[in-house]
Structure formats: structure tokens, C-alpha cells
């Protein structure tokens, strides 16, 4: 079986999420990659170095510059004449593209897989991760999104894949890119960070969030996350949200500050190695999953903690 993996990249750099998808694909068969975008020669070179990759298909065209699903899907469908599986990381880009490809191929997509059990079988979380389904696909071709935290990352070096250009399919003109507000941060990226400090509704407002959570995160070299309540209230932007419908993380250490532990939040972080919770309510559900709990008012505990680190 040949498996085609969507390469996620930004600003000329190949993203870590790709590496987990490569590991999943390697369990299915020969791994090919697709690098689509504009001026992506460098990304293709980097992709060819990934261990275990046989071939890199490169589609370099303005039509693919912002990974618009309308333009990318026909490209992937063309390549699927010679591949039996298409995998993307379960990122917002992957989730946008993969179902469009699946429908064009008349295939039922398998979302957010946790494991590969066989050529046709996979496990995936349902109901906010409160149940794990083992499913078997009857479709001849597989379209899959891969949960990054569930697969080890393939090595970025050691490979020597061939690079093959793919002729671009014309842009569909259905959609166009207008602009983006992508926050640049000095802190580690949420989905690949080893330590995460997340804040919840209890942080009151964006100033308080900044004054209490950011210094603690900086002391620990941690990324910063948040609950939906904190994002909805505007303390931090949407890309900080951890949970069922936000980002899925599994760092070495996850520190939840003033977060109650709703099932939708737990869905995004309960596979963290060590969970630490600071909450003034000793009955908060977060303590049912926390390895280390501190029942305290965060307004005194967090500054004290930051000071003592």
C-alpha cells in the first residue's frame, strides 16, 4: 500500500504535526509526502530528509499558497489514483482539506485516529474522548486524519526520498485568501510543548491572565493554554483553547490554573504525563485527574509559586 501524507508547513518550515502523521502512515505502507504551496522548494528538501519517506511530490503554485481546500482537494484526488491512503495531521488545515478529498473520492473519512490496528482498522475517540471506538473501513481507499499526540514523531533526518514535481491543477476560483492574524510568540508552540500552563475563567480578565499565567509559564519554559471560558471571555486568543473542540495536547507536565475540569477541557489534555491543578474548590473535577493538586486561591498561590521557582 502507498500512503500519501499531507505536509503541514508555515513560513518555509515543516511543522511537527507532519511527523506524527508520517509515523501513522508508515504502519500502513510505503510513505509518500505531498508538499503543496508557493515557493516550497525548501520545504520539499526538508521533507525528503524525514526518515522512512520514499517519495516527495511537490506542487509549487500560487493556487496552493494558502492551502485553500477548494484548490488543494483536486490536486490530492489526482494523486490518489496511485495511492491507497491519504493522511493529514488533525490540524485545522488537515481537518479542512481531508473531508473534501474523502467526499470527492466517495470515501468515509476516519477522523483523529489514535492507532493503526491493521490495514483497515483503527481506533479513534468519540464523545469527547469518553469512549474509544475500534472501527473497520470498507472503503477501497482510506482518508485519515491523525491525532498528533497519539503517534511518535518520525525523525527529521536520516531519509533520502526522491523529489518529484506534480503538475498543478488550475485554481478553482471558488475562494480566495484575504488575510490572517497569526500571533507570533516567543513561547513554545502549544501542541509540541513539553510543559504547558493553562488558565481558566478564574483569571478574571486579560491583564490578570497576563500578570499571573505568563510569568509562571516563562519560569517553567512552558507554552500557555486556556479553557474555552477564558477564550470566550477574551482573556487570550482562540488559538490558546485546549479541549475537545480546541487543541489536543499531551505534554510532560500540564498545569491547570483556575480551571474546573469540564469533560470538554479534559478531552484535550488528559493524556498529559503529569497533571498539576491549582483550584480553590477542593471538589473541582480537575482534581479527579490531577496527579498533584493544590487547593488554594490562585491569586496568592501563583505569585508565590512563580517567585519560588
Amino acid at each position, binding site marked *: 500500500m502507498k500512503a500519501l501524507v499531507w505536509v503541514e508547513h508555515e513560513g518555509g518550515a515543516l511543522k511537527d504535526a507532519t511527523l506524527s502523521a508520517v509515523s501513522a502512515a508508515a504502519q500502513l505502507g510505503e510513505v509518500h509526502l505531498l508538499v503543496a504551496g508557493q515557493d516550497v522548494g525548501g520545504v520539499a528538501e526538508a521533507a525528503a530528509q524525514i526518515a522512512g519517506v520514499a517519495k516527495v511530490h511537490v506542487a509549487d503554485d500560487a493556487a496552493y499558497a494558502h492551502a485553500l481546500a477548494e484548490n488543494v482537494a483536486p490536486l490530492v484526488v489526482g494523486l490518489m489514483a496511485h495511492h491507497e491512503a491519504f493522511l493529514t495531521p488533525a490540524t*485545522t488545515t488537515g481537518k479542512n482539506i481531508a473531508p473534501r478529498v474523502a467526499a470527492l473520492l466517495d470515501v468515509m473519512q476516519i477522523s483523529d485516529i489514535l492507532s493503526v490496528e491493521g490495514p483497515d482498522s483503527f481506533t479513534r475517540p468519540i464523545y469527547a474522548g*469518553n469512549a*474509544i471506538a475500534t*472501527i473497520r473501513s470498507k472503503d477501497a481507499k482510506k482518508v485519515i486524519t491523525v491525532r498528533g499526540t497519539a503517534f511518535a514523531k518520525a525523525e527529521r533526518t536520516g531519509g533520502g526520498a526522491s523529489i518529484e514535481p506534480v503538475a498543478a491543477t488550475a485554481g478553482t476560483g471558488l475562494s480566495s485568501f484575504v488575510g*490572517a492574524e497569526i500571533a507570533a510568540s516567543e513561547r513554545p508552540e502549544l501542541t509540541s510543548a513539553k510543559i504547558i500552563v493553562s488558565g481558566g475563567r478564574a483569571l478574571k480578565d486579560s491583564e490578570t491572565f497576563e500578570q499571573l499565567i505568563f510569568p509562571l509559564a516563562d519560569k517553567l519554559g512552558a507554552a500557555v493554554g486556556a479553557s474555552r471560558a477564558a477564550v470566550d471571555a477574551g482573556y487570550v486568543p482562540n488559538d490558546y483553547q485546549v479541549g475537545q473542540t480546541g487543541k489536543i495536547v499531551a505534554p510532560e507536565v500540564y498545569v491547570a490554573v483556575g480551571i474546573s475540569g469540564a469533560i470538554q477541557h479534559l478531552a484535550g489534555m488528559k493524556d498529559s504525563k503529569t497533571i498539576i491543578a491549582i483550584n480553590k474548590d477542593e471538589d473541582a473535577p480537575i482534581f479527579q485527574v490531577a496527579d498533584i493538586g493544590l487547593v488554594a486561591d490562585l491569586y496568592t498561590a501563583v505569585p508565590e509559586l512563580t517567585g519560588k521557582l
Partner: protein
Amino acid sequence: MKLLVPVKRVIDYNVKPRVKSDGSGVDLSNVKMSMNPFDEIAVEEAIRLKEQGVASEIVVVSIGVAKAQETLRTALAMGADRAILIETDAEVEPLGVAKLLAKVTAEEQPGLVILGKQAIDDDSNQTGQMLAALLGWAQGTFASKVEVEGDSVAVTREVDGGLETVKLRLPAIVTTDLRLNEPRYASLPNIMKAKSKPLANRKPEEFGVDISPRLETVSVSEPAKRSAGIKVGSVDELVAKLKELGVAA
């Protein structure tokens, strides 16, 4: 312009799902069911577009058991005009749902179909994108802002890095994210009024599409349980623990 809003009846988001002991699925007997929260946001957005004068009629559609009528009535009470139930006891996968919705779209000719980004039971996050593919339309997924301007719609999308805005040619597909709006509650008078709004009952067979499942659920199990750990009594103890973990010097 007409708007089509597909709504799904799902387990209420406040209920903690329990896996059946025989591993065949999740126990939904005597469990509170509600409209998928992302679909409430979709209905609300449609109503706002109508209030702005952008839309003229809102049609809601659900594929599911007879009781999905309740979900449709909720949407009508919020402010939708008309409902369609495609009644079936079978579980229809996103691809099948998208095929049925493509047929409904052909009948109704909406300018915009607004779906939720994700149903909180199957967590698939597929149907809107699939429908867009089947219709050959543009898709604005994970929307936090929707602005119709003439024959196009500008959609601001919640993406992993922040926000992104795309412009789509109409007709188009939009899927909602949490920050798009805050859905209203239906008032009692509106709940009463909704009872007399039209609700058509249809069957999947009428649409002539193959919706047989492609995925077989072999088993459903509980995830590995995490057990509660220890509580520390002071910040000093917590600092000591962090040192043990090697995350503090």
C-alpha cells in the same frame, strides 16, 4: 437569499457519556438529548442574517430518529421558518448525511448552508466539508465571523495559528466555531408559535442516494482511566514536586 441549516440531535453536552458494558457503543437510554451546540450557533447566525435583511427564509433540516423533531422545533422556536426531518432509525455517517444534504440543497437552492463544525457525539468534523465537495462549492470552516457582501461571503476562520479570513463565492458552505455568536434562548411565546410552523417528514429512500455505512464499529471501550493523585498542602510542597519532576531547578 434562503439559508439552509442542518441540525443534529446529540447527547446533551452536560451529560457524561457511559460506554455500554457489552462494548457495543455508548448508552443513550434515558439520557438527555439536545441540539448539537455548534448547530445552535449555526441557527443563531442564520437568524441574525435574516434580521440584517441578508436572508429571507431559514430552513432547518435534521437526519435522524423521529424524536429529532424536538430538535427541529427548538430551531423553529429560536426563529427558523420551516423544517425538514429525514427520518431514519439507522445511524447515518457524515458522508451519507452530506449526500442527503446535497439533495436537499438541490431542492431548496439556498445561498448559504450553515453547519456546525463538529457534532459532539461522533466528533467527526467532516459533514460541511463533504457537502461543499459534493456541490462543488466553496467552504468557510470554523467560522468566527461571517459577512455577506453581494455575491460573496467573507469568513473569518479560527485556525491553529490564530485567525484567517477567506472570501467565498456564493452559494457557499460555512461551518461554525464557538466564538461566532451566543445563541439565544427561545421565548415561551416563540415555543408556542413554533408548534404551528411547517415541518415536513421525509424518508432517506426518497432521495435516491446510497447512505449505507462504510465504517463498521467493531467495538467501543472506555479510555484508560486516570486516577486522582495526591494533594499537596502548600506552594513549597508543590515546588518540591516540580523539582522532583525535573521541571524546576
